[in-house]
């Protein structure tokens, strides 16, 4: 039997490759190195992207954050330099937008931020919010509940405390223990009842916070209708094609509406500072799309360069074996047999070396992944997915065949009588 399924053909190809071990080794190394680098680049790109996602995990990526400032333009009879203060009317304005999803204000009580339980007292961040705040901050309750609408309506003195706060105030109780619900804590000297304990992927700093109902906090700490920050989501949690346009519309409406309410110019960026995480995240995503393309380009370029080396090696091999090829034609080989023979040699060389590079690359990536520090902010969980491995394998096989095509064609094109006379 001859052709691709022929065992003898593969043995023949192997013996040809092994007959020149140094040449085959160097060529094979260039292929293996190309594939190895492709795998490393893909994994590094993946690790960087994962790190970026990780760094964005704290707050909702589809969120827009508003904070007031001072005007820089005179407008409607008002001088510039006026301080703008957001209020409950702005929250209602944002809630009325068709693009807005979850909406929350945030009021930070001024002055005393001591939190106490019994004799244990410490200073923690205090934030008073609306119930939707948990969606914007990615708050994960480990026991109890978050602030509710009824808490706001009835101005209940309830608190949701972070895991670190719970650990400090209740050192003998696990933070996820249900019995923490109902415990009393003093916030700036006022007694609040704990209704929930939360964790936050933002880390320890984000778990050192106490949340209060915004209405209660304003009443207790003199906030009146002032709010410090206003946040809302736009579209689905994972950005889609419509997210950017929706964010643009929402921001334009917010700037116009809030500017009209407070009497400043809608073009005055300093009067209302907008942090647009939708576009920020999309921009970073776009960078990673280009990075991924660049990675593939560089990686495949490296593989391609290696394949040119394979092609050259095979051309030399064909030249050296011209008389043998002529002899084979004389003995009954067809042109297609010679093409198959050279392609088999190319495929064998490329496959073995390519697989070697692939295994080495995947092995190194796995090693790095297992030993990478959790705190690493630049590279996180680098990996290459099955699709990428599949594409790499196909790239190896296709480029192996391509590398062999020219030498194979050359081999087949030599007339047998000419080949037999080759010196």
């Amino acid at each position, binding site marked *: *039997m*001859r052709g691709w399924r022929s*065992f*003898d053909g593969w043995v023949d190809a192997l*013996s040809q490759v092994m*007959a020149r071990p140094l040449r085959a080794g160097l060529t094979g190394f260039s292929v293996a190195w190309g594939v190895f680098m492709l795998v490393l680049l893909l994994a590094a790109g993946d690790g960087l992207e994962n790190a970026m996602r990780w760094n964005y995990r704290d707050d909702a990526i589809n969120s827009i954050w508003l904070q007031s400032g001072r005007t820089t333009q005179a407008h409607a009879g008002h001088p510039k330099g006026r301080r703008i203060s957001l209020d409950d009317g702005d929250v209602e304005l944002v809630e009325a937008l068709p693009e807005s999803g979850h909406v929350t204000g945030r009021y930070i009580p001024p002055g005393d931020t001591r939190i106490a339980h019994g004799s244990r007292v410490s200073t923690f961040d205090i934030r008073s919010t609306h119930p939707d705040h948990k969606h914007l901050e990615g708050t994960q309750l480990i026991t109890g509940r978050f602030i509710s609408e009824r808490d706001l309506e009835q101005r209940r003195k309830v608190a949701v405390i972070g895991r670190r706060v719970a650990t400090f105030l209740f050192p003998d109780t696990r933070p996820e223990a249900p019995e923490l619900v109902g415990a009393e804590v003093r916030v700036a000297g006022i007694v609040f009842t704990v209704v929930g304990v939360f964790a936050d992927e933002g880390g320890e700093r984000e778990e050192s916070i106490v949340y209060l109902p915004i209405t209660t906090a304003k009443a207790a700490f003199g906030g009146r209708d002032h709010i410090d920050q206003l946040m809302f989501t736009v579209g689905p949690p994972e950005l889609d094609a419509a997210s950017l346009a929706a964010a643009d519309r929402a921001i334009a409406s917010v700037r116009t509406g809030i500017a009209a309410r407070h009497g400043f110019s809608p073009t005055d960026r300093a009067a209302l500072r907008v942090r647009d995480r939708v576009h920020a995240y999309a921009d970073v995503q776009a960078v990673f799309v280009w990075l991924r393309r660049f990675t593939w380009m560089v990686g495949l370029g490296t593989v391609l360069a290696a394949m040119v080396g394979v092609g050259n090696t095979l051309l030399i091999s064909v030249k050296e074996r011209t*008389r*043998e090829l002529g*002899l*084979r*034609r*004389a*003995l*009954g*080989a*067809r*042109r*297609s*047999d010679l093409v198959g023979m050279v392609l088999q040699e190319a495929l064998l060389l490329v496959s073995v070396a390519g697989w070697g590079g692939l295994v080495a690359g995947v092995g190194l990536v796995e090693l790095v992944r297992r030993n990478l520090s959790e705190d690493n902010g630049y590279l996180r969980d680098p990996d290459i997915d099955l699709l990428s491995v599949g594409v790499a394998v196909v790239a190896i096989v296709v480029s192996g065949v391509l590398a062999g095509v020219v030498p194979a064609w050359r081999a087949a094109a030599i*007339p*047998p*009588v000419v080949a*037999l006379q080759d010196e």
Partner: protein
Amino acid sequence: MTTPLIHLRALDKTYRTGGRPLHVLRSLDLDIGAGESVAIVGSSGSGKSTLLNVIGLLDEFDSGTYLLDGRDAQGLDDATAARMRNELLGFVFQSFHLLPDKDAVDNVALPLVYRDTPRRERMDRARQMLARVGLGDRLDHLPSQLSGGQKQRVAIARALVTEPRVLLADEPTGALDSSTSREILALLDEIVADGKTLVLVTHEAEVAARMQRTIRLHDGSIVDGGD
């Protein structure tokens, strides 16, 4: 003679060298019957090797008729020409053309690869053929471990392993000393005696004299020994 195994009529072949035509075979007529042994002789450049290559389907001709075993050999596609070479023809070359990294058995078995013979059968037949040419004790030897005469015996075994109708030999003793040449010629005599057709190119009168017929070429034409 009944239907000739090799039948050439008005065969012409021209090479172009530097834009000028070089007529290497001119209106050549030749019939060779089954079982004949024929020597093609002539001075250098007379066209004897070209004629052998055309007969062996290794080279094409420009015009005329060539019937090999009754089959028209003009304008054959690659696969048909390859199959006819494999089934009907065996080649012996002056410089042996053995594959250096294969042992004697693998070298002899090579033509059988191209007729899809199973490996075990290939090996058996190659061993038998090597035994027939007196190399039964050199089966595993590489060409570099064989003498010139032994290499040519391996080449002859390789030419015969497919049981071809015609054995084509191009200066089969050209690279051998006189003693070894005699051994090879004796072997070729045996092969002819077994009924094979032998066409060989030689410049040695002694070799030509052992053939049943000698064809002399001059400037691409048969000047003696044709039909």
